[in-house]
């Protein structure tokens, strides 16, 4: 099976250096790209059906096409790699940056050429020390070899690339929060519109793409949109880095065709549940996705299929709940995270999430009241998209509202019996 994203990565995870990268076809995508018009590359990426791998699934080619072009377009323009992997339960971009950093860099150079950017930034969470080291070395190698800097490979196109290591906050993963953070501000989200494609970093047109998204780009340009779509089992193009964590036998990350089913991930790749633990449910793509249960396991995982069951693929990294852990306590863990990481910019988010956390904490302490389940349900409606500046609070409500459906008996038991039976 073709595994373009991880095919080069060494078993010992020592980063692939420039020589090895070039020997295995690296920078061929860039060489091809520089020979064709930027607009053609955008069309190629559109035709590939590549969608954003950070979780939202927005079509990448379409996102690039919003960037103003032509002589009177605002300058400079920027490309930013979102490498702030902080969604709980998500550990995929790390694999690419540590194992094959040139793949991400080549994707950024092609993206920058496609939209006419002069500077590119990698926004990396500081806890990813090995990723930082691999990227710094790869940028230096690429600079030395003429893939970065002035007049890249004699094409007339120039690009500077910089690494920014964040000081840590979940909000930096939201693209306008990330842009504020790159500007040296608190990572509050910006009101939208205008979107970053028109008014982004320092007020200029900016593309923000996830690391995994960018790593796909050289392969699409090198081998074509038809080949790329053919990697997938469904309409969404390409492969996907899927992961599983929780009480499974072999937690890990695997590059598999888009459309691989949850059951294959859980049973074939993760080896099933650990002995003595039973499956109760899962979050399919990080903390901000809705629970799925046994009846959903044969669903293909891609952007559209999971939505038919009220969930979404998110980051594609599955978190498994077992029968030895309390579903209400899991919500408390998740909502504590969201309440803590809320930037405080809008009232429904900072006030609502703290309230939700307090109600869950009371339930876990045996102090839940009958009306508390209704209070949680009210929040799942009032913290929806459109009530807040960004997707943090709406994302927080996804696991909660689905927990109230799939694990309703557990919530009711906590309130009725005034205790948590897992304690």
């Amino acid at each position: 099976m073709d595994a373009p994203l991880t095919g080069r990565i060494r078993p010992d995870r020592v980063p692939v250096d420039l020589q090895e990268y070039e020997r295995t076809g690296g920078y061929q995508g860039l060489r091809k790209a520089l020979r064709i018009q930027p607009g053609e590359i955008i069309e190629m990426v559109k035709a590939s059906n590549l969608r954003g791998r950070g979780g939202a699934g927005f079509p990448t080619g379409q996102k690039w096409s919003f960037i103003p072009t032509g002589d009177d377009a605002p300058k400079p323009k920027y490309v930013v790699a979102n490498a702030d992997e902080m969604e709980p339960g998500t550990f995929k971009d790390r694999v690419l940056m540590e194992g094959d950093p040139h793949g991400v860099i080549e994707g950024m150079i092609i993206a920058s050429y496609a939209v006419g950017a002069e500077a590119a930034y990698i926004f990396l969470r500081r806890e990813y020390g090995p990723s930082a080291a691999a990227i710094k070395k790869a940028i230096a190698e690429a600079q030395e070899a003429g893939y970065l800097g002035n007049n890249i490979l004699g094409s007339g196109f120039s690009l500077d690339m910089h690494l920014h290591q964040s000081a840590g906050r979940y909000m930096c993963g939201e693209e306008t929060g990330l842009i504020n953070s790159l500007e040296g501000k608190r990572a509050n989200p910006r009101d939208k519109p205008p979107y970053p494609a028109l008014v982004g970093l320092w007020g200029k047109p900016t593309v923000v793409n996830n690391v995994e998204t960018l790593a796909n780009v050289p392969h699409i340009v090198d081998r074509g949109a038809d080949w790329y779509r053919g990697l997938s089992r469904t309409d969404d193009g390409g492969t996907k880095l899927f992961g599983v964590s929780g009480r499974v036998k072999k937690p890990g990350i695997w590059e598999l065709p888009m459309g691989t089913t949850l059951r294959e991930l859980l049973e074939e790749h993760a080896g099933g549940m650990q002995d003595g633990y039973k499956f109760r449910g899962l979050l399919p793509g990080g903390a901000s996705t809705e629970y799925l249960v046994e009846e959903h396991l044969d669903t293909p995982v891609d952007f559209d299929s999971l939505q038919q069951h009220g969930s979404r693929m998110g980051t594609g990294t599955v978190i498994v709940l077992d029968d030895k852990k309390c579903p209400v306590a899991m919500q408390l863990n998740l909502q504590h995270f969201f309440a803590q990481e809320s930037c405080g910019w809008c009232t429904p988010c900072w006030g609502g999430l703290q309230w939700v956390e307090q109600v869950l904490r009371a339930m876990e302490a045996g102090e839940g009241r009958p009306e508390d389940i209704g209070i949680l349900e009210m929040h799942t409606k009032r913290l929806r998209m459109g009530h807040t500046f960004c997707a943090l609070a709406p994302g927080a409500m996804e696991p909660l509202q689905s927990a109230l459906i799939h694990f309703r008996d557990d919530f009711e038991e906590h309130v009725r019996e005034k205790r948590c039976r897992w304690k």
Partner: protein
Amino acid sequence: MLTAEERQEIDEAIAMSGRNRAACIDAMMAVQAHRGWLSDETVDELAEYLRLTPAELDSVATFYNLIFRQPVGRHVILVCDSVSCWLLDYEPLLDHLKSRLGVDVGGTTADGRFTLLTSVCLGACDRAPVMMLDGALYGNLTPEKIDAILAEHE
């Protein structure tokens, strides 16, 4: 007073964008790497160097989880308390650390050796439960492993 080395690191950060403001997070982290934490005096010095007000700089400093505005020990421990580590029972391990160190979360041992903090997901969920000590990641933790890691750090 900012040292020559600190000033050089800040200038390199400014050169990335040509903007003082954009460099302020890098500047604070660079100085923190030398001093362990940012005192009020350090924030004042940095603000003056970057031509921001101390209040502007402090509003940024207090937003980010890894910028310390209180003294920390020689080694900083970050225990992941997010969902995958919760599923793999990080809580008894955190209790073990608290009792071994004799401090609560947020505390520093009396000898100034360790500061104990929790962290959001460290992005190593296949190795849960995990913690970070001075930037190095330790996975598949057990009480015995934790004891061995502590013993390696004076």
